[in-house]
């Protein structure tokens, strides 16, 4: 299995049943993989902050959810994390595909990517950057387990080393 198939399988096996996302090229194989499983509810949100709210609501209703976004979309979610998911102790698992790093060609993608990890650290949200396919299964399962068992949000950041990243045309 490739990294995307492994991610999808491990998250479904840890009980994730709802996926909402604001799309990114690097998310294409994940979106397709989740959509291919009939147990899953998969749909796009119009803004990442909304997706965090939906995932929080799903958990309150007894369903585990994952939110997927591009790194620039992280800039839309700090208040939903800081005033909803973190203080209410609602576990929301985030998958963030990283732009603004290795090989980036668009300078406006860079600053927000520098903000992601310090913001997550300041909010006390654990995060792990995946850059090797052979670590995906272990890290994804453990991060999901930590997130839902400790009732705190958590983030998986997918490096271009893992996904291939987006190349300039």
């Amino acid at each position, binding site marked *: 299995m490739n990294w995307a198939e492994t991610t999808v399988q491990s998250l479904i096996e840890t009980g994730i049943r709802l996926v909402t996302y604001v799309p990114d090229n690097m998310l294409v194989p994940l979106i397709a993989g989740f959509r291919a499983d009939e147990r899953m509810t998969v749909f796009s949100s119009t*803004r990442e902050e*909304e997706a965090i709210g939906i995932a929080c609501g*799903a958990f309150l209703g007894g*369903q585990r959810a994952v939110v997927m976004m591009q790194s620039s979309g992280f800039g839309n979610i700090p208040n939903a994390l800081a005033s909803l998911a973190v203080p209410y102790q609602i576990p929301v698992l985030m998958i963030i595909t990283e732009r603004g790093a290795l090989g980036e060609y668009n300078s406006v993608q860079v600053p927000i990517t520098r903000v992601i990890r310090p913001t997550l650290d300041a909010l006390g949200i654990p995060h792990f950057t995946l850059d090797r396919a052979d670590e995906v299964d272990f890290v994804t399962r453990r991060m999901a387990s930590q997130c839902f068992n400790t009732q705190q949000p958590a983030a998986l950041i997918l490096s271009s080393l893992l996904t291939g990243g987006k190349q300039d045309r």
Partner: protein
Amino acid sequence: MSVQARFGGEVMNRLDLTKRLIALLTHDEAVVGGIGNSNFDLMGAGHRPQNFYMLGSMGMAVPIGLGVALAQPERRVFVLDGDGSLLMNLNCLPTVAQVAPRNLTIVVWDNSAYQITGVQQTPTAERTDLVAVAQGAGILNAEWAKAEEHFEQLVERSLTEDGPHFIGVRVDQAPGQARPERDPVILKDRFMRGLGVK
């Protein structure tokens, strides 16, 4: 033409209508109260274990309600939110229309003001018709409540007919007097136990 003139109905009272709504709920329906006066009056109508009170995250009431509705497809879910809060995250309406949960009803208490921050005017005072916005987003069961009895009829319809539903209500600017507990973890825990998922 102002929104009030187009609307043509009564200006009602949020606490009174919240009580009328709660009185119609007989199947442990979930109610998500948005930030500020929406959840003050939800508390004022009498706490129920199936109430969720949002203390921050302005604009997130509809997304939270959508998530609950998807996780609990056999339960009716009501979101009570203010015009200012909805305006902050209007993009949630097309998402609700696209996902089309048949068990979700959005009630907007429109007093045309950011009441809790000092009663500053919102765009609904003169221009923006939130029911028309909801219809334009694709929520076709969207209607202004013309009076108290009409509001009750719209709630009853949303309890029996497939949604999503959107009920707009023009309300006065009487501040809510009650306050929910300000312990978010307890609010979460009570709600989840009230839904039987914990």
